[in-house]
């Protein structure tokens, strides 16, 4: 596929989606408190453009920091569980159980534990919500490494660390990036949970909350769209990293 097509096709699909949305609202005659249409969103966005910019930045940086830390946490758990069967058996039920807890219920707990430390609380929720897929993918990748891969290096007297960074880690990268894409979208959910449930005057979640209080429905919708755009932006940054570090896994 031509490079230009790779850009044009997603933009066209977005455009079609917006037209369909506008048409749906128009044909049903929905008022904007029921369903705002794309043409309502732009004025709402423009009116609050500076707030969008500064709150968007709050949301973005805390998501990125949280996601980066969740990569470290996920990698740590994944390595421990990937190399030790005992640790895998021991940690899986804990992690699965923890992951099954709705994070919305964890938000107030954390907010109470670290009162007033909003940035840290938000980042913490991001880590909690998004490290799980990374941990699982690394653990599965490492534990399913064919023994011959280890043997070619082990038979030369290589250390466990050399086997890890020369073979196990690069071989697991495609699975890791698959999980990181899932975690990226989860991370935004984490940021906004904290921003909406425990509002502290920061982030797009706070703007959403203000829209709700003042019954400004187009504003609420445009916050959702802004979040979607940030999500897409971060997702494609991950895709870019993937093509640099794990591009070899893609076959033409």
């Amino acid at each position: 596929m031509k490079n230009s097509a790779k850009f044009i096709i997603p933009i066209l699909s977005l455009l079609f989606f917006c037209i369909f949305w506008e048409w749906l609202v128009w044909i049903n005659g929905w008022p904007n408190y029921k369903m705002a249409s794309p043409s309502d969103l732009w004025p709402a966005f423009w009116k609050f453009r500076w707030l969008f910019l500064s709150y968007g930045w709050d949301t973005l940086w805390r998501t990125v920091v949280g996601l980066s830390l969740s990569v470290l946490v996920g990698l740590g758990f994944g390595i421990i569980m990937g190399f030790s069967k005992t640790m895998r058996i021991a940690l899986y039920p804990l992690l699965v159980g923890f992951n099954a807890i709705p994070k919305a219920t964890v938000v107030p707990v954390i907010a109470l534990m670290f009162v007033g430390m909003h940035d840290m609380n938000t980042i913490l929720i991001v880590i909690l919500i998004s490290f799980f897929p990374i941990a699982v993918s690394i653990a599965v990748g490492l534990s399913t490494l064919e023994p011959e891969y280890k043997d070619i290096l082990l038979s030369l007297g290589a250390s466990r660390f050399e086997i890890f960074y020369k073979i196990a880690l690069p071989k697991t990268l495609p699975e890791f990036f698959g999980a990181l894409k899932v975690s990226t979208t989860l991370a935004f959910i984490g940021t906004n949970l904290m921003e909406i449930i425990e509002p502290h005057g920061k982030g797009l979640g706070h703007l959403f909350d203000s829209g709700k209080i003042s019954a400004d429905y187009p504003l609420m919708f445009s916050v959702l769209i802004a979040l979607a755009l940030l999500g897409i932006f971060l997702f494609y940054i991950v895709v870019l990293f993937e093509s640099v570090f794990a591009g070899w896994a893609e076959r033409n």
Partner: protein
Amino acid sequence: MGGDYCHPQQIYMHIELRNISHAFQLETGLLPVLQELSFTISKGKFVSIVGPSGCGKSTITRLASGLLKPNHGEVYISNELVSSPRSTVGMAFQNPVLLEWRNVLDNIVLPLEIVSREMPKAGRKQRARNLLKLVGLEEFEKSRPSELSGGMKQRVSLCRALVHKPEVLILDEPFGALDAFTREDLWQTMLTLKREESFTCILITHDLREAVFLADEVLVLSGRPATLQYKLDVSLGDNRKLTDLYTSQTTKSLAMLRNQIKIAQEKQINHEKFC
């Protein structure tokens, strides 16, 4: 290269397995795989090991490479007791296990990164290139493993096993998954490598023709628990051709080997009945 290995007066035992017994711990109990197995291989010799499926042939490769310690008995390489993996061994398996994220040349260089850290990069690559030329893949050094055919991957795997000039080459059914004609091509490649590089080789195989065509000696293992059942000296010489496989002499040897395998299989079946 290494011509001094060929002087008859300098031949000495290079690999020695002495009274090896080994059993695997299964959930159902102990599974004895090797029982008082002993054999020696002289320096520079090529030895094929054949035997019934599951008789412990692959266990021998792990013992000889130091990846596994036997329950009883000792393995010696160059008169030194093998107690852990050593960099003087090269291995290739049925699965070529090439690293998909490296190109062909960088795949071959891999062992040098572990055992010859001080060797300059250019020297490593030159060594890898020389080997690629021997196996006829000099034009593919920049290719990705996924772009190669099964036979080509196996050639690369052989180069990787030899790049650090190991004294001992251990091959565990490297041609087992290839089609018949590709396999014959690789036999020729193997002979070329044997001529140009100096190593003592253990080849595990299920293919009796392959065992005879490549080796100086063929060892037949008995059924599990395996011990040495039969030894065949191959008299094909250094300049072998595929047509040598169809002479009456070779046909006779092959028939004899086939018969030995049959005896070995019966032993294994009987043993399983009693277990």
